[in-house]
């Protein structure tokens, strides 16, 4: 439309133009970053001419040198400059009205934030790199309302990101990540320094464009591109130390002896112990980590380039656990012709780690302090107590806990991986208003691992009274396979291809229409995994893989798996309409076909719409000067989760039998039953939001309300017994609801040119509930196993009305003041000891899912100093103290228990009497997961350098990550992600890596 108007204007002015002695003035309109501004308007009153900048900001106007050119563009401050004969570069400054210039990535396109009708949280590059952690998702914790991040400081681990509540029990829970167009499930391979924007799509009207993969939310990550006309070299380096944020004080050896004697009612242990081992200290060290990045970027007329190389090395706090990652990225943009642009990106990531078993933390927690790390004879300490009441090599065993130091020393594993990601994107401007985009992305991953079991030393570590000769004898006698070497290999290749058209035009100056339509295919190639275990491997790793040696006789396990491939074929379309710059309407539709489902059930349609009203643009608001932006938006949509358990039916083999002779006949049958109608889970969401900016844009805020319902949640159904089908089969039987609200507020102000500050925060509340189960019998999930026969979580038909991830436990009822025994409530309200309890006495007592989480941020810039603090907290979640509750007998106890437990002389103690048996899983070990933690404090200083000097920019900083926490939990960390499965050890502290506190110094340099 714009073009039309200007053409028309041009026509009017044509006669004048023809009379003048005009010539072509050439130039380029760029923004402050040097990026061309397409569509900028160049007008010369003197020459009575106008022109539009093209896709790259270039323009040609018929004017004379010296004529004043007025250059303007929506979102930028207009400038007037005299024309010159030489090619001009006109830089426009972004308008102060920030809402107008901000752009959000919306999937297959971008949209000005002010025109967007959906709920999207955008996190800027500097926010992501501020907290020095490996995975960008961990860095955004607390920075986006409605986005819960549960992370672990275990190097290389993947944080769980839950967007607006958990809507699935068995299906995939992770959001879909789109990295420069590549749809992927993990961003551990992405160097945070390469990220330019991180956008979280939260509501259905934003997400529906991703259809059947969108129900858990979508995170769109865009990596950097070259800009400016000169080569820019940036270096960031930091180094830091890490230590556990919180430790649990365990009983010392004399207190242990007292408690355990009391439990055994003997005097087995001397109360004057010569050894007092702090096992936690024995297995940990001060961790250290460093990261170095260098990037080279720039742009010329036709090419923008960005290269980056990054290296991260961590020596973790757990002894022997090292992790390294090297990343390389190259993003280029080629302008092939005026209308054709090619974007190419490529990234290479390799990781190298020596994992150690996290169960060492539990072992260290439980092992007795009377046991030395090593005995005097040099052998590892074991829990044996001699006649004298001290630990020795030959006494009787008093617990089943190993030596965690030996466990780490003798655990020999290495993992290496390489991830390659790359993509090509072609943009072709068919007409000024019509653009065609074709994008291909691929991802290749390869992983290898070895794990060697040094049988002799492992056996000797457990049997300090034995010798190597004893072991050799045992090998002969028992014919056990020893020195097992496991080698694993895995690889996959995923790719996707999308082609779409974007049409954008303004009609009659008031109707701004944008249409997008396209097709896409995504293929998750078959994941291939090979795992070979062989015995009798040489203890020297150099000789594990000899040339020309056939190991067939030593193979004890050979697994060669190719997992099912999945493919997706999709059509999508979006309509965005803006009337008079204030009434907004968006409609989205996506149709997806998934190979995961049976032929008749594989296609689904996911519609959504959104509407917005920019109220402050109405005439009745014209006089209200305090309100800079007031926008009401709302939407509705349907989303799918196709990452659900597959119900492909297969033959069960291995059901062999001898039928009377020496031949083992092969047996096969079918023991599963499939529901052919199984398909994706569908989430329906309605949402409403309000965005505002007040008081000269100093106060910005957003308020969102949503109601999400997944009414076909997949759960495992117990087939009818008489069907004889023994495998539970997944079916659409559950209903989960998530309802909540989110608030974010931020105040930015500049007091003087030298002093500015901000303060902000966000709060989100979500109510998760399993609202219904169809008329079937679920195959119960007994989860959160403590490894001692006790489970902490449960899901079956009785779970309706509870949140997902609920604990199901006996209720602790204090202890009997007569004998100190723990008592529990029976279903009828009476109290009983644990041997009188039955499953009917268990109750749902809260979930691992928090009800609320919140973040705060504040910062200050004074002259060359910058200072900021970020905090994060959750409330309403429960955590289970698994390592405390996983007792068998003879383990160490907490100092707080050892100093105040029931005895006949201390009947009102705060802890029950000493006991030496496995306690049932009960609320005694369930604690509040509420915490508030300062995630990050940064203080930076920019050296006063001349921009023209060799080093144009240098900022030095110190950074404290997780320096403080307030928590109610008595264990190490209330933030317990485990493997991210709410029905496994998520929210249970058992074999968990502690949260760390880190202190970092670093520098950013630009050349």
């Amino acid at each position, binding site marked *: 439309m714009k073009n039309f108007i200007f053409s028309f204007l041009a026509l009017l002015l044509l006669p004048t133009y023809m009379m003048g002695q005009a010539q072509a003035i050439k130039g380029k309109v760029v923004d402050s970053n040097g990026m061309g501004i397409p569509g900028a308007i160049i007008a010369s009153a003197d020459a009575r001419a106008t022109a539009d900048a093209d896709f790259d900001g270039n323009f040609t106007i018929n004017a004379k040198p010296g004529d004043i050119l007025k250059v303007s563009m929506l979102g930028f401050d207009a400038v007037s400059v005299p024309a010159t004969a030489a090619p001009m570069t006109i830089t426009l400054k972004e308008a102060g009205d920030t809402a107008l210039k901000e752009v959000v990535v919306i999937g297959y396109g971008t949209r000005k934030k002010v025109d967007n009708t959906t709920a999207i949280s955008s996190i800027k590059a500097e926010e992501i790199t501020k907290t020095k952690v490996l995975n960008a998702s961990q860095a955004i914790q607390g920075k986006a309302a409605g986005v819960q991040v549960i992370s672990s400081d275990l190097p290389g681990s993947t944080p769980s990101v839950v967007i607006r509540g958990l809507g699935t029990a068995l299906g995939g829970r992770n959001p879909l990540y789109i990295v420069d167009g590549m749809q992927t499930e993990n961003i551990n391979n992405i160097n945070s320094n390469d990220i330019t924007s991180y956008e979280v799509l939260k509501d259905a009207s934003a997400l529906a464009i991703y259809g059947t993969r969108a129900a858990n939310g979508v995170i769109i990550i865009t990596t950097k591109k070259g800009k400016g006309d000169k080569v820019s070299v940036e270096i960031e380096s930091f180094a830091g130390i890490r230590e556990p944020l919180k430790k649990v004080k365990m009983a010392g050896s004399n207190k242990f002896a007292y408690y355990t004697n009391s439990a055994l009612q003997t005097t087995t242990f001397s109360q004057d112990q010569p050894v007092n081992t702090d096992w936690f200290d024995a297995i940990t060290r001060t961790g250290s980590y460093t990261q170095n990045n260098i990037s080279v970027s720039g742009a010329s007329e036709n090419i923008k380039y960005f290269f980056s190389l990054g290296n991260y090395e961590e020596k973790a706090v757990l002894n022997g656990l090292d992790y390294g990652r090297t990343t390389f990225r190259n993003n280029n943009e080629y302008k092939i012709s005026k209308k054709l642009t090619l974007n190419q990106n490529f990234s290479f990531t390799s990781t190298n780690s020596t994992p150690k078993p996290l169960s060492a933390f539990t072992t260290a927690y439980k092992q007795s302090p009377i046991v030395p790390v090593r005995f005097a004879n040099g052998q590892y300490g074991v829990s044996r107590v001699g006649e004298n009441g001290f630990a020795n090599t030959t006494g009787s065993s008093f617990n089943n806990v190993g030596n965690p130091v030996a466990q780490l020393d003798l655990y020999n594993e290495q993992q290496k991986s390489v991830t390659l990601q790359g993509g090509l994107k072609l943009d072709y401007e*068919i007409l000024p208003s019509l653009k065609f985009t074709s994008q291909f992305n691929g991802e290749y991953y390869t992983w290898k691992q070895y794990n060697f079991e040094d049988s002799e030393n492992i056996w000797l570590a457990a049997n300090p009274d034995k010798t190597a000769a004893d072991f050799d004898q045992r090998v002969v006698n028992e014919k056990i396979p020893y020195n097992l070497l496991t080698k694993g290999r895995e690889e996959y290749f995923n790719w996707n291809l999308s082609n779409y058209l974007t049409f954008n035009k303004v009609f009659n100056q008031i109707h701004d229409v944008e249409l997008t339509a396209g097709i896409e295919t995504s293929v998750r190639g078959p994941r291939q995994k090979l795992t070979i275990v062989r015995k009798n491997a040489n203890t020297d790793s150099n000789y594990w893989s000899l040339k020309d040696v056939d190991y067939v006789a030593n193979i004890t396990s050979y697994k060669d798996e190719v997992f099912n491939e999945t493919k997706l074929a999709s059509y999508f379309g979006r309509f965005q309409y803006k009337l008079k710059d204030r009434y907004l309407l968006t409609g989205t539709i996506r149709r997806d076909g998934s*190979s995961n489902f049976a032929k008749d059930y594989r296609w689904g349609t996911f519609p959504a719409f959104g509407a917005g009203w920019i109220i402050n643009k109405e005439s009745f608001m014209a006089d209200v000067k305090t309100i800079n932006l007031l926008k009401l938006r709302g939407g509705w949509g349907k989303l799918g989760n196709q990452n659900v358990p597959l119900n492909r039916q297969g033959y069960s083999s291995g059901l062999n039998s001898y039928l009377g*002779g020496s031949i083992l006949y092969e047996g*096969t049958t079918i023991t599963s039953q499939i529901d052919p109608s199984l398909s994706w889970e569908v989430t329906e969401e309605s949402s409403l939001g309000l965005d505002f900016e007040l008081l000269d844009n100093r106060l910005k805020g957003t308020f969102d309300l949503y109601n999400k319902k997944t009414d076909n949640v997949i759960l495992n159904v117990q087939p*009818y017994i008489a069907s004889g089908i023994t495998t539970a089969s997944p079916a659409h039987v559950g209903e989960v609801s998530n309802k909540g609200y989110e608030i974010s507020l931020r105040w930015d102000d500049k007091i003087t040119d030298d002093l500015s500050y901000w303060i902000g925060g966000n709060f989100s509340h979500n109510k998760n509930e399993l609202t219904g189960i169809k008329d079937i019998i679920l195959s119960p999930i007994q989860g959160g196993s403590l490894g001692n026969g006790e489970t902490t979580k449960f899901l079956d038909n009785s779970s309706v009305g509870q949140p997902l991830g609920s604990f199901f436990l006996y209720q602790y009822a204090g202890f009997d003041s007569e004998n100190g025994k723990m008592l529990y409530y029976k279903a009828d309200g009476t109290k009983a000891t644990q041997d009188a309890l039955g499953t009917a006495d268990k109750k749902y007592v809260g979930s691992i899912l928090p009800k609320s989480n919140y973040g705060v941020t504040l910062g200050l810039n004074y002259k060359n100093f910058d200072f900021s603090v970020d905090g994060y907290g959750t409330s309403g979640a429960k955590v289970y103290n698994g390592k405390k509750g996983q007792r068998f007998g003879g383990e160490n106890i907490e100092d707080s228990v050892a100093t105040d437990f029931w005895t006949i002389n201390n009947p009102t103690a705060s802890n029950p009497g000493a006991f030496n048996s496995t306690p049932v899983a009960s609320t005694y070990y369930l604690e509040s997961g509420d915490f508030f933690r300062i995630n990050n404090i940064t203080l930076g200083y920019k050296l006063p350098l001349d921009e023209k000097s060799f080093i144009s920019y240098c900022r030095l900083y110190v950074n404290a990550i997780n320096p403080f926490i307030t928590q109610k939990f008595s264990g190490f960390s209330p933030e317990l992600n485990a493997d991210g499965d709410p029905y496994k050890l998520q929210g249970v502290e058992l074999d968990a890596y502690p949260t760390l506190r880190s202190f970092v110094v670093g520098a950013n340099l630009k050349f």
Partner: protein
Amino acid sequence: MKNIYISMFALVSLLFAGCADDYLDVNQTESVSTDDIELYNNNAGAETFVTAIYNKFLDWDTTSFGWIGLASITSDDADKGSSPGDAGTDKDILDALTYNASNPSCRDIFKAYYAGINRCNQALNIIPQLDKADAGLRSRLMGEATFMRAFMYFTLVKIYGGVPIVDHLPNPSSLEDKNMLLTRKPVTEVYAFIENDLNTAIAALPLKSAYSADEKARVSKGSAYALLAKVNLYQKNWQKVVDNCNLVTGYSLVPDYATMFRLEGENGPESIFEINGVGSVPAKGIRQYSQVQAPKGTGGWGWGFNTPSQSLLNAYEPGDVRKDATIIFRGTTLYDGKLVPNTVQNERYNYKAYSSNYSGADDSDANVIFIRYAEVLLMKAEALNELGQTSDAISLLNQIRNRAKLPNTTFSSQDDIRKAIWRERRVELAFEFDRFFDLVRTGQAKTAFAADGKVFTEGKNELFPIPEAFLNEAKGLSSQNPGY
């Protein structure tokens, strides 16, 4: 240029739309798809579906711990055994006949047998589709599967009374099939169904002699006739018992009773339906069958459950060789020279579960004999006696007694002979999972249990409780047995 792109786009869209559905057909690689039935379309493939049914009898739930508890420890022949504090999940409760609807063994056996019936139905559904397998073989395999289904229903009807009859693979979305799975059928219907299956099996199965030495444990025509006779016996169709027993041909009594329960005597001339375990590598035995019944304690090698009762010991007449073939006495030396020291916890153990080579192993070579020729003779004797042909019955009874090195019976009246046959069944078939059901069948239960110091409640204990888990599914379509 522009046109090229537009047309490319249009072309890609069309292609995509046209073959998108085929495009989404992805080959299954994690497990053999049930669509690929062709892989089994040959003789060996067809056989695998029936082998899986035999395999089901090797399961822990089907023929091991739960089954031993429910079908043996409950009877007056056996006590729970093991140490007093070791309940073996619910073996104490089974021994005392105080089980209820949530009893684990009652539930697990119900589940296990229906899982077995599923394997039969899978075989009966798949084998007819395997047209490249030999027609004669397919027919025989169908016969084996049909026999197995009948055997499993017979076990179910003895334990639970009427049960749902699942005669085909249920379609998960069919209401009719759902009702089939949840509705108990009357006992008479179950018996009719069993008889029908057995008649089908009889037509399809070969004689035992037709099987090669490596397949002696496969069921044959004789197995089906013998089982049919037993089914008739439970319904007191005396003439049919006699007729079907007469059709069980090609079998004979083994001279040395004890050898039948050892590796050397397995699948011998007396064996009609026997579950075969192998302990040598690759081992495939009845899961821990020997282990759970082997002597417990110092010098022992097992868990010590299912021990012969005093009541059984008392039932042996002096000189009966079957006593020492059935019962391991502590402090004695076994046939293979193994000493059972006096330090083991229980006085007596089940000799028929002993495996010489794999005594304490999970997989042993101990077999379970479900039907053998001696029982056929006893069934025929009982039926003839009921039909008034007592003298013919006596001669059959004496065959059994003489093999046990006992003299001819001294009884002659019809009533005495009936009781003599019942007594003979007890000692002949002890620890072969017949006694409890035999007591119920013959109406001797209350007295017999009283003699063993247990309370058998008439009108209740004839049947075991229907598992609660099943009734929860049935929601009123089925009801509990009386008394539970």
